[in-house]
């Protein structure tokens, strides 16, 4: 592989040597090591700086999401999904809402779908910005953490206008949004669309073609497409290995088929490719937002779902029917069909799936989250074998392992 050759060229010691001559030391990365950006543990066996083998321990913030979801009515699960991949909570929220909508067979207006696309792509930008800035920090370019975070604040402001929270958004409801885009949101979004690209390109130019950064990241933690598929990789990490699989294209949801965007792919599946794929995805997300926003259809911001979407407050006070629905929805007494649904969205880290089994009761009978982080993180020891400690750190940050999603 090309990546390996590149790596060798940069290496003084011969990596192909299989026998280990030195003593093997064990070092613990984590649970609170600065490189983990979350809580999980990597036990590395190292020979000098070279990693001989690695083993991970996860579960340090296991919060029993799936059990919790079995004890909460459908509308109360949205806040729980917030905390899966907390860098891009709206994607999780909306993915869950779409799962329930699929279960109940709801018809969602085009406007809601477009609004969702805008919000989800904003969330994707926020997610990738964190990951890429953290790659920069781990590579030692500390300033690259601050520029993207200033941009993230603007995305937070946008969230705040719609749902009233910054990070754990609890955005949207089953059947639509809690409120329409307001004037402030429109102004802020327009200014974001204008100011974000130059700021982003500036951040990009600090790292993208910087030789120190390229040397650090090229060849660090590569994985081939075959291995990645075998490990059930999805998302940017898989695309970095050269596979153009994207749920948004393969199985479009929420009108993604209407938009024109590219799927960025890498070549070697190494850290540089992962970084570049994420950077390009941010640009593509901007394209999608622009398309969705300029074609935003007129119409209601919610579906006609009296059984699930709360009626307007004014009606609750005045109309008997609305009051009954209000109580039914809050108490979780509405009719929910029994059945099982799998719905997948393209989350920040890959295919985020919701496998929902309903027995018609108030709460889901079983809700399983397909958490991309959890699945691809197991390939980590294989990816860093033979690399140095510095590579291991960069590989970890470029894989974007989010502890909330990892441990659920």
């Amino acid at each position: 592989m090309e990546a390996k050759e590149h790596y060798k060229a940069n290496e003084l010691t011969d990596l192909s040597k299989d026998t280990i001559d030195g003593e093997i030391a064990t070092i613990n990365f984590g649970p609170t090591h600065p490189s983990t950006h979350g809580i999980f543990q990597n036990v590395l066996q190292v020979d000098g700086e070279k990693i001989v083998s690695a083993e991970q321990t996860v579960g340090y913030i296991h919060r029993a999401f799936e059990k919790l979801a079995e004890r909460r009515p459908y509308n109360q699960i949205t806040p729980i999904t917030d905390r899966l991949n907390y860098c891009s909570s709206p994607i999780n929220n909306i993915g869950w809402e779409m799962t329930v909508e699929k279960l109940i067979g709801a018809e969602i207006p085009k406007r809601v779908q477009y609004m969702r696309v805008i919000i989800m792509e904003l969330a994707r930008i926020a997610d990738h910005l964190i990951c890429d800035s953290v790659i920069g920090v781990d590579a030692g370019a500390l300033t690259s953490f601050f520029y993207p975070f200033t941009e993230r604040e603007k995305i937070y402001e946008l969230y705040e206008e719609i749902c009233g929270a910054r990070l754990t958004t609890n955005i949207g409801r089953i059947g639509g949004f809690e409120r329409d885009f307001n004037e402030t949101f429109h102004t802020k979004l327009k200014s974001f669309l204008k100011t974000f690209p130059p700021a982003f390109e500036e951040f990009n130019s600090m790292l993208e073609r910087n030789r120190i950064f390229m040397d650090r990241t090229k060849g660090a933690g590569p994985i081939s497409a075959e291995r990645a598929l075998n490990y059930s990789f999805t998302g940017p990490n898989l695309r970095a290995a050269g596979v153009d699989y994207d749920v948004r294209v393969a199985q479009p949801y929420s009108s993604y088929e209407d938009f024109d965007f590219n799927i960025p792919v890498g070549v070697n599946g190494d850290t540089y490719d992962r970084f570049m794929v994420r950077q390009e995805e941010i640009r593509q997300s901007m394209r999608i937002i622009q398309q969705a926003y300029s074609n935003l259809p007129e119409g209601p911001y919610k579906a006609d779902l009296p059984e699930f979407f709360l009626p307007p407050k004014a009606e609750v006070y005045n109309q008997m029917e609305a009051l009954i629905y209000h109580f039914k929805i809050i108490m979780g007494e509405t009719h929910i069909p029994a059945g099982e649904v799998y719905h997948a969205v393209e989350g920040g880290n890959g295919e985020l799936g919701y496998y929902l089994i309903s027995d018609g009761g108030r709460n889901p009978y079983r809700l399983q989250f397909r958490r991309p982080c959890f699945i691809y993180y197991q390939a980590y020891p294989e990816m860093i074998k033979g690399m140095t400690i510095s590579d291991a750190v960069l590989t970890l940050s470029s894989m974007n392992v989010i502890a909330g999603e990892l441990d659920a």
Partner: protein
Amino acid sequence: MDTALLIEKFSLVIIVFLISLGIAAYSTYFERKLAAWIQDRIGPDRAGPFGLLQPIADGVKMFMKEDFIPKNSDKWLFIIGPGISMFTALITSTIIPWGPPIEIFGRQISLQIADFNIGVLFIFGVVSIGVYGIMIGGWASNNKYSLFGAIRASSQMISYELAMGISLITIILLTGSLSLTDIVKSQHGMNWNIFYQPVCFLIFFICSLAETNRAPFDLAECESELVGGYHTEYSSMKLGLFLFAEYVSMFISSALMAILFFGGYNFPGMDYFDGNTLAILGVLAFFTKTFLFIFVFMWIRWTIPRFRFDQLMHLGWKTLIPAAIINMLITAIVIAFNKGWF
């Protein structure tokens, strides 16, 4: 021995010591402020006006913090480590010519604690002891991160010292002396070495970054990999000494660069002044240059990513040392031609 000379030298030592410490302390403040400005922030502004008391607050806090020694560490080495670091960082300042001679009470006072005729060698000697501080500290901590940091630091210093030394031979060739005073004197006015030896300066500058463990060569303590590197287990004032030593050596390196390549206290148009005016202006010129370099050190740190360990070695051994040798050879040949040896 002349009592007046003793007093003179003693007060000079105290002044230089305090200035070095003060500049190191305020370098931390300036670094934080600069980092903040680069990052669109405002930086410390709570402690005193504009946060100017921040270094003092840090110092007092570190003094008052519980000072403990890990159970499995080597107690004496653990204590000696930071001491060596601080000592070597400060001792280099003895041979820095801070300015032209000044006249006080009719005495001609040279603004240099000691003028060795082997000044450059002395610096190399002392700096190579400096690595022992880090190594001993890191080893004594009995912590793997510290050990890694120590190993990285020592191998890095050894590698970069070579390139640094070879690159400096050109300056010695140009001047014909190992004494810093002579080197400065030979750069009178604008006759600075940088105009003759830009490549040499570049090599020296890169090596200084590596010698002082500054980004992009801060592998010994890189936070994202080794937590705290060699000072992971240190707390309280021992940590303070380590951190301080880094800033002191940054200051000294900047001063050295000013002396070796930018004419030290020389400035254009210095012939129009004499006596104490010249001395004061000279000192000002010297510090301006030094601060400029400190600024560049920090500016670089907050801009670029760091190297990986093997790349760092690669750069040192395969790029800088050959470049320094070629540069030295070319200079030697040119000098030989000029003197008509061929």
